[in-house]
C-alpha cells in the first residue's frame, strides 16, 4: 500500500464524524450528457485495458478550456471529420497491436480452432469481455451478436480470425459508446417523477473522477449488483478507489489539467539564451511539480495550501542543471531535494513548470505569469487586452527600459492597459528573480532586478514571498474546490450547484484543506450524480431522425 494511504484511510474514517457538521444543499444537476473522452482518459483506458505496451499514435482535436479545465471542454466538444479520421487511425493501430502475434496470446484470452477461419465462440468471449471495459457497461445481447458477426464477416473477407477480430475491435474503438461517456438515466424509484443515472453511468462518473479512467472489474460488478444505488455500497466503492494506488494517477490527471500542463511538451526556449533548457527539462518539470503536489496532498495528506510554500521537492539530472543543484543519478532517476532556507524558491509557483511555461522563448514575462497564476490557481478571470492600445510609448527610442519592470511601467501610463496590468503585473514582477527558463538570477541586462511584488494586498520583497501570499489567499483553496467539482461532473457547473460548491468550500476549510477528504465528500455526494430529465426533441427533429 502507498505509504500515504494509511493516513488517507484514517482521515476517511474521521470524515464520518465530521459529516455530521453540515447539511449539503440540494442540487438538480444537469441534463444527461455525452462527453468526449479527453486525450489522457483515452490513453489511460487503452493502457488499463490492453496494457501500456500498446502504443497510441495520432493527434486529438483541440479542446476548448472551459471552467478552467479541458475535461469540462470535452463535454462541449464535437468530432470533426479530420478528428474522426484520427480516431479511426488510432483504433486500427490499437486493434492491430492487440491481435498481433506478440500480444494476442495473453490479451485475447482464447484461441480459435483455426486461425484462418472465423471462430464465433472465441470472438464472442473476447469482444464481450473487452467491450464491457471499453463501453463501461455490458454489451446487450444483440449488440454483441452484431460485433461477433462483424468479426466473422471480416475474418472471411480477410482470410483470418485475428484480422476479423481486429476489424471488429477497431469498430468498437470508434463507436460512440467508447468515445463518448454517455449518461444513461432511468426513473428514480425513490423519488417519483425524477430520474437518476443508471448504475453504470454512476460507475463511470466515479471512476473518471477518482482514477481518470474507465471502471474496473470490481466497480462494474458493483454496478451490476445495484450496489451503487445504495449509499453504503457507493461509499464502499468510493473508499476502495480512494485507497487504491491507482488513485494517484487519477489525482495527477486532475492537477495536470488544472495546471494546463498540456502545453508543457511544446515549451520552446532559445538554445543560445538558455542553453541548459531542453525537452527533457520540460518533461521533467511537469513531473517534478506533480510529484511535489502528490507528496503534500496524498502521501502526507497535508494542507493543500502547502503546495505553494513547500521547500521539499524532487529533481532529476536535467532539472539539476536549471536549479543549479548537483544530482548524482546517472540512471536519470529522481532525487528528493529541499530548497535551503536562504533560497527564495519554495512552492510550485517557483517551479520550472510554472515559470518557464508562462514565459517567452527568450525572456520571462511577468504578465503571462501573473495571468496564469490568477486564472489557473485563483480562478480569477483576467480581461483580454484592449484592441486599441497606443504602442508608441513602448517604442520610444529614448526609453531607458532594460528590465521587465521598467518596460511594464509604461502600461501605467495607458489607462486602457493599466486596469488589467494592475491585476497581473504586481505578482508577476515579484517572480522576476526567476528567468524565462526557470533559473535564478539577480540582474537583467546588467541591471539589478527590483523583484518586489504584491498579491491582493500582501506585499513581498522577492519571489520568496509569493508562496506565503498564495497560501493565505482565500481564493486559492476556493479555486481548487471549484475546479475539483467541475472536474468530477466533467461539465460546466450549473447555477443550481453554486450553493453546493460554496458548501464544499466551507467543508474543505473545516477539513483543514485535505484533498482526500474533499475527493471523498464529492465522490459520495448526491450532487455528483444528480441529473435532470432530458428535454425531449422537437417533433421536427424527431421526424428527421432516421
Amino acid at each position, binding site marked *: 500500500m502507498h505509504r500515504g494511504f494509511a493516513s488517507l484511510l484514517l482521515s476517511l474514517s474521521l470524515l464520518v464524524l465530521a459529516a455530521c457538521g453540515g447539511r449539503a444543499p440540494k442540487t438538480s444537476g444537469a441534463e444527461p*450528457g*455525452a462527453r468526449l473522452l479527453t486525450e489522457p482518459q483515452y490513453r489511460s483506458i487503452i493502457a488499463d*485495458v*490492453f*496494457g501500456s*505496451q500498446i502504443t497510441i499514435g495520432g*493527434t486529438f482535436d483541440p479542446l476548448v478550456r472551459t471552467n478552467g479545465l479541458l475535461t469540462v*471542454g470535452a463535454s*462541449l*466538444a*464535437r*468530432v*470533426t*471529420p*479530420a*478528428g*474522426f*479520421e484520427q480516431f479511426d487511425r488510432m483504433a486500427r493501430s490499437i486493434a492491430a*497491436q492487440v491481435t498481433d502475434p*506478440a*500480444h494476442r496470446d495473453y490479451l485475447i484470452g482464447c484461441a480459435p480452432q483455426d486461425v484462418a477461419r472465423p471462430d464465433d465462440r472465441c470472438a464472442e468471449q473476447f469482444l464481450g*469481455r473487452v467491450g464491457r*471495459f471499453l463501453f463501461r457497461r455490458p454489451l446487450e445481447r444483440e449488440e454483441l451478436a*452484431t460485433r461477433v458477426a*462483424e468479426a466473422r*464477416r471480416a475474418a472471411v*473477407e*480477410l482470410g483470418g480470425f485475428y484480422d476479423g477480430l481486429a*476489424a471488429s475491435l*477497431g*469498430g468498437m474503438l*470508434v*463507436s*460512440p459508446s467508447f*468515445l*463518448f461517456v*454517455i*449518461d*444513461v438515466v432511468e426513473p428514480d424509484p425513490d423519488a417519483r417523477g425524477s430520474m437518476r443515472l443508471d448504475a453504470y453511468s454512476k460507475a463511470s462518473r466515479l471512476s473518471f473522477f477518482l482514477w481518470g479512467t474507465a471502471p474496473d472489474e470490481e466497480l462494474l460488478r458493483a454496478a451490476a449488483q445495484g450496489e451503487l444505488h445504495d449509499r453504503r455500497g457507493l461509499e464502499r466503492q468510493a473508499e476502495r478507489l480512494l485507497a487504491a494506488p491507482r488513485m494517484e494517477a487519477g489525482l495527477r490527471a486532475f492537477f495536470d489539467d488544472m495546471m494546463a500542463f498540456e502545453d508543457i511538451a*511544446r515549451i*520552446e526556449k*532559445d538554445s*543560445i539564451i538558455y542553453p541548459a533548457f531542453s525537452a527533457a527539462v520540460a518533461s521533467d518539470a511537469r513531473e517534478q511539480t506533480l510529484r511535489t503536489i502528490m507528496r503534500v496532498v496524498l502521501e502526507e495528506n497535508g494542507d493543500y495550501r502547502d503546495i505553494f510554500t513547500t521547500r521539499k521537492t524532487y529533481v532529476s539530472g536535467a532539472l539539476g542543471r536549471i536549479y543549479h543543484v548537483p544530482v548524482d543519478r546517472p540512471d536519470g532517476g529522481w532525487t528528493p531535494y529541499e530548497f535551503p532556507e536562504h533560497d527564495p524558491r519554495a512552492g510550485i509557483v517557483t517551479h520550472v513548470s510554472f515559470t518557464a511555461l508562462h514565459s*517567452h522563448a*527568450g*525572456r520571462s514575462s511577468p504578465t503571462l505569469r501573473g495571468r496564469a497564476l490568477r486564472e489557473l490557481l485563483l480562478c480569477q478571470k483576467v480581461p483580454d*487586452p*484592449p*484592441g*486599441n492600445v*497606443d*504602442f508608441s510609448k513602448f*517604442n520610444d*527610442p529614448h526609453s531607458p527600459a532594460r528590465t521587465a519592470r521598467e*518596460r511594464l511601467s509604461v502600461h501605467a501610463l495607458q489607462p486602457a492597459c493599466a486596469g488589467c496590468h494592475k491585476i497581473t503585473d504586481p505578482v508577476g514582477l515579484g517572480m522576476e528573480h526567476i528567468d524565462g527558463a526557470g533559473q535564478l538570477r539577480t540582474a537583467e541586462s546588467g541591471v539589478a532586478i527590483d523583484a518586489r511584488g504584491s498579491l491582493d494586498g500582501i506585499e513581498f520583497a522577492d519571489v520568496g514571498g509569493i508562496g506565503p501570499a498564495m497560501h493565505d489567499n482565500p481564493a486559492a483553496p476556493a479555486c481548487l474546490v471549484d475546479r475539483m467539482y467541475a472536474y468530477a461532473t466533467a461539465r460546466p457547473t450549473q447555477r443550481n450547484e453554486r450553493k453546493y460548491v460554496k458548501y464544499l468550500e466551507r467543508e474543505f476549510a473545516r477539513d483543514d484543506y485535505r484533498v482526500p477528504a474533499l475527493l471523498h465528500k464529492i465522490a459520495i455526494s448526491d450532487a455528483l450524480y444528480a441529473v435532470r430529465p432530458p*428535454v425531449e*426533441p422537437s417533433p421536427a*427533429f424527431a421526424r428527421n*431522425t*432516421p
Partner: protein
Amino acid sequence: MTFLIPKAVSRRSVLRGAIGGTTVGVALPFLDAFLNDNGTALAATGAPLPLRFGTWYWGLGHTPGHAITPKTRTSAGIDFLEECKALKPHEQYLNYFGGFNMPLDGRSNYTHFSGWVASRTGSAPSSNSEIPAPTLDLLVADQIAKNTRFQTLDVTAAGIARENYSARSTNSRAAAEASPEKLYQRIFGFEFADPNKADFKPDTRMVVRKSVLSGIGEERRTLFRKLGSSDRARLDEYFTSIRQLENQLDVQLQKPAPNQACAIPVSPRRDGPEQNMPQGLEVDTVIANHRMMAQMVAMAVACNQTKVFNVVFSDNFSHMRRPGQTYTHHLLTHEETQDKELGYQPVAFWFNCRTMEGLATFIDAFKNIREGSGTLLDNMLVFAATETNYARVHSLDGVPVFTIGRAGGRIKTGLHVVGNGDPITRVGLTAMQVMGVPIDSWGTQSLRTSKTITEILA
C-alpha cells in the same frame, strides 16, 4: 497490468509489438493522353478540370506603407513594395484586396483573434474563443469536396496543432498537422492509391472498414433517445464525420483516374535532406517545414486527394523567432523601436518579409505542377489572409487579403481591388460564390454583405 490480464501473467511475457514500415511508390511518367486537346478537360469524360480551394494564413499583417502601395480605385497592377517584393513574379496569379474594413458592432477587438474569425466566418466573435459560424473553407468543402479522400487537409508550419484557422464552431475545430513527416504518411502512406499505377485492386480491408463504420451509423437512433437536444446536435456531427470517412473509403475503393500531374513526392523522413527534421519556431525551421508542407499539399491536390486545404505559415501571435534573440515576431511588433529614418520596426519588418517570401514559396509549389495546358494555379483559388492590418496597433481596417489562382478561368487576376471601407466579407462572399457555394449574402450585422466583387469576375 491490464484489466484484461489475470495477475498471474508475468511482465516478461508482455512483448513490445513492432510497427511495420511503409512503402513509398514511384510515380510514372506523365501521360498527356488523358486530357483533351487543349488541356482544359479530362478527355475521358469531357468534364472540366476540378476546382480546388485553399486558405493560407499568416500572422501579424503587414507594415503599412512598405508592403503594397495603396490605390484609390480598383485597377490592374499591384505595386509590390519591399516587404512584398517576393510576390512580384507571381502577380499574374494574384489579386490584392486593400481598404476593406472589419466592423465589430461594438464588440471588443480580441487581439489577433477577432480579425481572422471575422474574415473567415463573416461574424465578429463575442469572446476570445468563440467561433460563431463555420469558416469559409468548410462551406466550400461542403459544396465541392464531398467525394474526395480528405474533405480538407489542414497543416501548419507554426508547430502548434491547435492553431488551425478552420472550424465549424467553437468546439468543432480540427487539429492541423504540424509534422511534415506525419503529413507525408497521412497523404502518401500505405493507403495512397497511385493513380498512374497500371494495376489497381480494391483493398479488401477498406471494404471491411466501411462495413464496420456502417454498423456504427446504425447506433444513432438508440443513442439519440438518451440525450438532451444540445448533445444530440453534437453527436450528429460525429455521425456526419463517420459518413465522411465512409465517402473517403468509397473513393479509395475505386480505381483512380490516371493523372499526369500526380507524382509522389519524396518522403521527408526516409530520403529527404531534412532527416531528423527540427520542430519549432525558429524562423528558418518554420520556413523549411512550410516549404515541404506546401509541396506535399500541392501534390495532394494534384493527385486528387483533396479539393480543399488550409495552410498556416505562422500563427496569429506569430511566435517565430531568431536564434539568440529575446524577442519573438509578435513581441517585436509591440516593443521594437520604430526606426525614424526607415519609418518602421526593422526586425518586425524583417519577419514580415520572410513571411511574404513564404507565400511566394507556397505559390511556387502549385505553380510548378503542370495541369492541362497550365498549372494547378489555373484551377484553384486560395484565400490568403491575416488577422490585422498593422500588428503594432492591432488595427482591423484595411486588413490585407490576397487571392491566388484563376479558379478555372472564373476570375481575372493581377488586380488591386480597393474596398473603400466596405466589409471584408465581400472577399469571402465572392470567393465562395466563385467556388459554387449557392449563397447571395454572407455574414452578420455590419459584416453582412450581398455585394459580390464583380470587378474580379471573368
